[in-house]
């Protein structure tokens, strides 16, 4: 289907129908990962390391196994196959299954407090708890390191003796540095030397958790012949299937994974933790096993995103033209390599048209839980530094902060710092919309300040499958393979309804399990409305072609003589014949006679995803005596391509902004002197509560991505990028102090105000 250039022709796309999953969710009927029960289900629990770093000398589960009610215990040595060091392109980015398996269940060493050491299945939760207390693990405790710079320093405790860093010369001795990346354009140092004004700053962030309201949950049931059912909270049922197959050496065809309704993922559920354990336990016990993480486990043992340190330098001419820019950044990956340092470097300056730029980074392991993706992985971190520095630059130049961005804005034809040239993008339009928004010029009172920051994310396409079926009465069923974390299933129904020309209420979407629909990549990367939407549109188009053929058969004319309009087959012209339009339902009623059931499944690897840009304006009021920051007003402007269902798009923007605000103000991982997380609950891990925030105004700019039939650009990840610096810049404006480290919690603000430096 060609790109629909005229949005005003659209009847369903762009409207705001009621979501199909709404009633189930608000009445409690929706089936989340912990809600399914099967006869004879056992409770599975995980024994976790109390040490931040230790060698596992021995594990003796004999007393636990002797406890009545205990049906199975699994350990890596006893129950998980050895995986040789293997990088496999699986899912969105390369996964090292050896590391993944060792993270799911420790082998030889525990690398963080909370690292899984053994798992137990028992008839009751209380018995499982008692069994865990009876498992004897002997550890040889080792020195640990948490902080990224300490982990890079000489003499740091080494996590992996066999770690050979990529992207740099071999260091010749054991190291915690897993990777070096560098992206360059021109000569950044020469560019900086030409500048009239240079700003330089060091910025630091800590690990923050994705904070999904629903902990990881799974129920798995393995038959003696190997056929396995898994029902789990996840961003990818095919990912679970593949990862379980690799980790436990099982045939993929034997594994059927149903994605449950999900209470948030944000990237944190794009990998496995409990699933291989539940399957291994079920296989051994001969019964279904259900496992649900406690909130404490979610914090300690599931990946937050990285924290890190960076130095940013930006130089410009007096008129604001940036002549050179650099960022040097190191991110913690947690126990195994894989921090998002590459995207952090690629996105850092992506909003700007720069001839001389260098972004260099290190991926560093340390004794904390292995990080997982979190909404635009890496980009919020580097943008915090870059957008703070841009604010400093604007001040030094005496320029309006938005004008400085406009002066250097990336546009179609700009060569990005990471290489490719941008096609048509909407950054200038976003900046214009921000500048002309009443928020930008609204008056401020005492102790109040305003900050602005921008952000970029690539958005991706990838493997997606969708089917469209015509039911006997002409209603439509749409099945797609993408777990719905942002309203995508409603969008699939809307796009199918648009193509078919039928009302949205006649199209019911579901998310298929791995046996019901073709392979589909994970829900993440802001790809679903784009890629799965594209597959859905193509499937709907094929159905339209088939419907036209059937009408032609009924009218006994050539299929070329039939058009499809507003849900009806119509003769293409007067020559075709004087037939009355034939509605879809009428064709459906005769499907059997005209060739059989009408439906189509499409599997694609969607290409041509369009990048997204955002600009956020934030007003704060700072209580200078207590450091308390109040967010007074927040406006998030973003180029969304085309909003299929604007309420969902606004919701994604508001949600990302809120997570970014929490990241900026109060969220952090705190460790005690033994390397154990000190604040593993929502009482002391402080995400914003509803009363903390004003209404977030989402402004949708639509510069369509013509590669998608409706112009869709991914939207879910961009909104978490600008808030960190937007809030920091607002605090600077309100107090005169530049904060260089996150979170900007009250004690740090008070200390900064008192000393004059953040």
């Amino acid at each position, binding site marked *: 289907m060609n790109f629909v250039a005229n949005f005003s022709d659209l009847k369903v796309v762009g409207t705001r129908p009621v979501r199909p999953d709404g009633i189930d969710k608000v009445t409690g009927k929706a089936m989340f990962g912990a809600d399914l029960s099967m006869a004879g289900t056992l409770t599975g629990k995980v024994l976790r390391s109390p040490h931040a770093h230790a060698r596992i000398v021995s594990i003796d589960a004999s007393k636990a196994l002797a406890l009545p009610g205990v049906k199975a215990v699994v350990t890596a040595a006893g129950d998980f196959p050895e995986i040789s060091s293997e990088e496999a392109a699986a899912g969105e980015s390369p996964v090292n299954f050896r590391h993944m398996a060792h993270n799911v269940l420790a082998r030889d060493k525990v690398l963080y407090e909370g690292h899984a050491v053994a798992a137990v299945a028992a008839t009751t939760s209380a018995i499982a708890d008692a069994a865990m207390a009876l498992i004897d693990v002997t550890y040889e405790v080792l020195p640990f390191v948490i902080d990224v710079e300490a982990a890079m320093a000489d003499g740091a405790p080494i996590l992996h003796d066999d770690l050979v860093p990529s992207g740099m010369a071999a260091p010749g001795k054991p190291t915690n540095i897993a990777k070096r*990346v560098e992206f360059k354009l021109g000569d950044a140092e020469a560019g900086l030397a030409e500048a009239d004004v240079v700003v330089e700053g060091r910025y630091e962030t800590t690990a923050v958790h994705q904070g999904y309201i629903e902990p990881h949950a799974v129920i798995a049931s393995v038959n003696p012949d190997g056929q396995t059912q898994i029902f789990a909270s996840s961003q990818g049922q095919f990912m679970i299937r593949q990862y379980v197959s690799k980790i436990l050496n099982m045939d993929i065809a034997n594994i059927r994974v149903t994605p449950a309704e999900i209470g948030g993922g944000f990237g944190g559920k794009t990998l496995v933790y409990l699933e291989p354990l539940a399957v291994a336990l079920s296989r051994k016990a001969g019964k279904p096993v259900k496992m649900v993480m406690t909130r404490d486990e979610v914090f300690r043992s599931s990946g937050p995103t990285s924290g890190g340190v960076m130095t940013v330098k930006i130089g410009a001419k007096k008129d604001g033209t940036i002549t050179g820019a650099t960022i040097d950044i190191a991110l913690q990956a947690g126990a195994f390599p894989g921090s998002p340092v590459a995207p952090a470097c690629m996105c850092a300056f992506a909003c700007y048209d720069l001839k001389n730029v260098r972004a260099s980074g290190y991926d560093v392991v340390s004794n904390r839980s292995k990080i997982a993706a979190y909404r635009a992985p890496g980009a919020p971190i580097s943008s915090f530094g870059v957008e703070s520095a841009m604010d400093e630059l604007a001040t030094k130049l005496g320029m309006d902060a938005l004008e400085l961005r406009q002066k250097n804005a990336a546009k179609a034809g700009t060569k990005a710092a990471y*290489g490719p040239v941008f096609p048509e993008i909407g950054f200038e339009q976003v900046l214009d919309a921000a500048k002309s928004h009443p928020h930008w010029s609204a008056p401020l009172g005492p102790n109040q300040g305003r900050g602005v920051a921008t952000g970029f994310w690539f958005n*991706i396409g990838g493997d997606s499958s969708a089917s469209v079926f015509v039911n006997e009465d002409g209603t439509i069923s749409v099945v797609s393979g993408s777990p719905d974390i942002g309203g995508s299933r409603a969008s699939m129904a809307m796009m199918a309804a648009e193509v078919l020309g039928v009302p949205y209420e006649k199209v019911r979407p579901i998310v298929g399990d791995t046996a019901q629909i073709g392979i589909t990549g994970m829900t993440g990367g802001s790809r679903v409305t784009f890629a799965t939407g594209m597959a859905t549109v193509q499937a709907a188009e094929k159905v339209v072609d088939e419907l036209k053929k059937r009408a032609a058969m009924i009218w006994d004319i050539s299929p070329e003589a039939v058009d499809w309009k507003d849900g009806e087959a119509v003769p293409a012209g007067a020559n075709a014949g004087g037939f009355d339009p034939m509605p879809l339902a009428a064709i459906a009623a005769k499907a059997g006679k005209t060739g059989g059931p009408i439906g189509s499944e499409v599997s694609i690897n969607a290409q041509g995803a369009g990048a997204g840009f955002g600009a956020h304006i934030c007003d704060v009021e700072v209580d200078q005596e207590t450091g308390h920051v109040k967010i007074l007003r927040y406006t998030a402007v973003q180029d969304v391509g085309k909003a299929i269902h604007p309420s969902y798009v606004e919701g994604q923007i508001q949600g990302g902004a809120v997570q970014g605000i929490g990241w900026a103000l109060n969220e952090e991982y705190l460790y005690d002197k033994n390397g154990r997380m000190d604040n593993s609950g929502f009482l002391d891990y402080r995400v914003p509560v509803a009363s903390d925030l004003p209404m977030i105004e989402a402004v949708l700019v639509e510069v369509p991505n013509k590669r998608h039939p409706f112009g869709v650009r991914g939207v879910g990840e961009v909104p978490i990028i600008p808030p960190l610096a937007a809030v920091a810049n607002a605090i600077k404006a309100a107090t005169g102090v530049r904060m260089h480290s996150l979170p900007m919690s009250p004690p740090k603000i008070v200390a900064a105000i008192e000393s004059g430096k953040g």
Partner: protein
Amino acid sequence: MPKVSISGSSCRQFIGEQTEFEVEATSFRRLIRELDSRFPGLGEHIDETMAIAIDGEIHQDAYGLQLPADSEIFLIPKIGGG
């Protein structure tokens, strides 16, 4: 002949400091094979870890992609998301 640049330094162990190449290839798959014949092992590395941008449009996992004659090709690290 498309001009190919490799971003990111993850390929350093195969290609050293050089980052720009002229490669005789009309499809992404041919490109990978050509590069692999010049730098053994690079092909698999690109296959598994890199995405391709053709005149600015990023593609991941697309052997059949046609490379226009004078296109500017960038190989960049594959992008995941959250």
